[in-house]
């Protein structure tokens, strides 16, 4: 018995108290580089190309032509817009994964105005109505789960998730109602000839308006979250609901107000897609951005300025991977796989920022004879 070997655990995990910001970013950068290497290996295995060629292709896919660059920034702006929308909710620990549905409903409201009022009103009157109805629709869609949460503490992750599909089917319903031509199951380009309800183009660039709107929103959201009383209340509610109540913050009111805002901004994203670029509506117009936005926002630590970079990273990869898919005649879902791999690495690396692995010190064994 006495000779039995004592098994000490090799290491154990300790929570870090503090980590300098540069170290944290170095860890994140290392994770992204590691992810890019893994992605390159996967792509190499599937295409047989050398990794440098692959990255040149990715870059070309993102910035190869002016048009591609514009598309990249358009995608970036819409994804960023939805991410901005969900961020205030996340800051108060309200897991709004219903961005998709809120965006769809906002888009649906815009489309409804274009279709029903397109030949009755001039653009000067129609566009403000579209803006108001999209914002209102998105806000209503966002506030429904918030009301349930405030009143009965209904699980918001699951409620917002259900709201997505209710929105999808609502859109599907109206698509059949308004389909052109009948029986096609599609709406097609709305008001193609009159361009009624099409948001104006700035400088002849189709996407510039969206980009400007979202850039302004980003700054506004940053200020709102960090420098206003509302933003402060949101942080307090997120950190500790008990404390919030204790200092007289009406938690229910904050939840409802914040989700109105969250839904409203998703509504704007829907408006920008339907009125600004696509001029039609489909059930998949959101392209799952409501879900991607969750990751964008989380990866950026809910900071609107960092979100520019995280959403850029995801959009860049997505565009680049689609280019790889086209050039090497792979399936376009290839980009989802690469996105997934990169996400796994970034998600995983947070561990090394929050915790450290400490190895057990050796030696210093006491004599058993003692006592």
């Amino acid at each position, binding site marked *: 018995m006495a000779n039995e070997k004592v098994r000490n655990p090799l290491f154990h995990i300790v*929570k870090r108290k503090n980590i300098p910001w540069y170290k944290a970013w170095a860890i994140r950068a290392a994770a992204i580089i590691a992810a890019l290497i893994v992605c390159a290996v996967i792509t190499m295995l599937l295409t047989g190309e050398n990794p440098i060629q692959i990255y040149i292709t990715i870059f070309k896919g993102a910035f190869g032509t002016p048009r591609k660059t514009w598309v990249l920034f358009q995608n970036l702006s819409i994804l960023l817009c939805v991410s901005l929308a969900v961020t205030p909710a996340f800051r108060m620990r309200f*897991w709004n994964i219903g961005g998709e549905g809120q965006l769809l409903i906002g888009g649906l409201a815009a489309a409804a105005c274009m279709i029903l009022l397109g030949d009755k009103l001039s653009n000067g009157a129609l566009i403000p109505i579209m803006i108001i109805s999209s914002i209102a629709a998105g806000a209503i869609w966002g506030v429904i789960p918030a009301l349930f949460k405030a009143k009965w503490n209904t*699980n918001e992750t699951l409620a917002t998730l259900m709201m997505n599909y209710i929105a999808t*089917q609502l859109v599907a319903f109206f698509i059949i109602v308004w389909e052109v031509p009948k029986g096609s199951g599609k709406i097609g380009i709305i008001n193609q000839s009159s361009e009624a309800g099409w948001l104006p183009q700035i400088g002849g660039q189709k996407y510039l308006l969206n980009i400007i709107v979202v850039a302004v929103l980003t700054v506004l959201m940053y200020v709102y979250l960090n420098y206003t009383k509302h933003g402060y209340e949101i942080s307090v509610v997120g950190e500790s609901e008990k404390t919030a109540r204790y200092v007289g913050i009406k938690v229910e009111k904050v939840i409802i107000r914040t989700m109105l805002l969250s839904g409203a901004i998703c509504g704007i994203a829907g408006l920008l897609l339907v009125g600004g670029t696509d001029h039609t509506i489909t059930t998949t117009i959101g392209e799952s951005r409501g879900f991607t936005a969750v990751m964008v926002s989380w990866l950026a630590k809910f900071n609107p300025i960092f979100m520019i970079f995280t959403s850029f990273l995801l959009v860049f990869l997505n565009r680049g991977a689609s280019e790889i898919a086209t050039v090497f005649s792979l399936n376009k*879902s*290839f980009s989802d*796989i690469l*996105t*997934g791999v990169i996400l796994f690495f970034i*998600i995983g690396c947070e561990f090394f920022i929050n915790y450290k692995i400490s190895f057990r010190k050796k030696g210093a064994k006491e004599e058993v004879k003692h006592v």
Partner: protein
Amino acid sequence: MFDLVSFIPRAVVQSIPLLYGSCGETLTEKSGNLNLGIPGVMYTGGICGVIGAFLYEQAVPAAEMKAVFAIGVPLLCSLLGSLIMGLIYCFLTVTLRANQNVTGLAITTFGIGIGNFFGGSLIKLTKSEVPSIALSATHKYFAAQLPFAKDLGWFGKIFLSYGFMAYAAIIIAFITAYIIKKTRVGLELRAVGENPKTADAAGINVSRYKYGATCIGSMIAGLGGLYYVMDYACGVWSNDAFGDRGWLAIALVIFTVWRPNVGVPASILFGGLYILYLFIPTGMLLSVKELYKMLPYLVTLIVLVLTSMRNKRESQPPEALGLSYFREER
């Protein structure tokens, strides 16, 4: 007149993927892991089965195929594929303590990507005219019915007209329910999901339970994808055809208040709601049918709200759902 005899079997075949998915997710959630990656896991389960079946069909002429392999190879591939997805999820959320919602959504992106990518690539390989891949030989084995089922009229149609995986789903659901409710392992699993700190103090290995439940749950959910392709879709894989069934499975978990045995009738109800639009009088507007498809989600939302209103302890989500556990947290 509403044609029940043809409605019920169609509702049942719709329900089976949902039942697998929700049963797997219930098991997962009981350990405190909210795996929003289930849609991705089910896609992966499906496509891995397809790959297995495809390789076996390529290797062996249809006439020489053996039932054991025709079923076993896709089955094993499917289980392996969804197991890997479950392991990725666990590694990130349990070992690395990452945020469950974000990880789950990443798994879904990844899994659907895997499904569509390999699906698309196989379609290209077969140089088929249509954007799908047909594995009719394998389907034959999966869809095999009892030989006398057809002679039993409406009874046979309602109860005996399904492939073996449909019955397996129901059996798995009941076994899962039994394990959760009645056994020592189930008791410990519930404790982990409710209060991991307590479970840990009681000497239960929290990480092992989380890994175990999530991985087995993923494998069960993955079978839903396999059933969908091999039986329901007659061995035809086409991209995105699986649709949003994964999310519906998560809805079903809430609807059944975390009870897989309730999942059996509930999934059939969901399956029925899912296809109800096909059975409403044809004179009705096509658009209204789209609204019918909303029903499962709407019903789930209502149930979710109602259970939270009643606030009964037994019908709440596991208390530690969505939270990662770190023992030395102070």
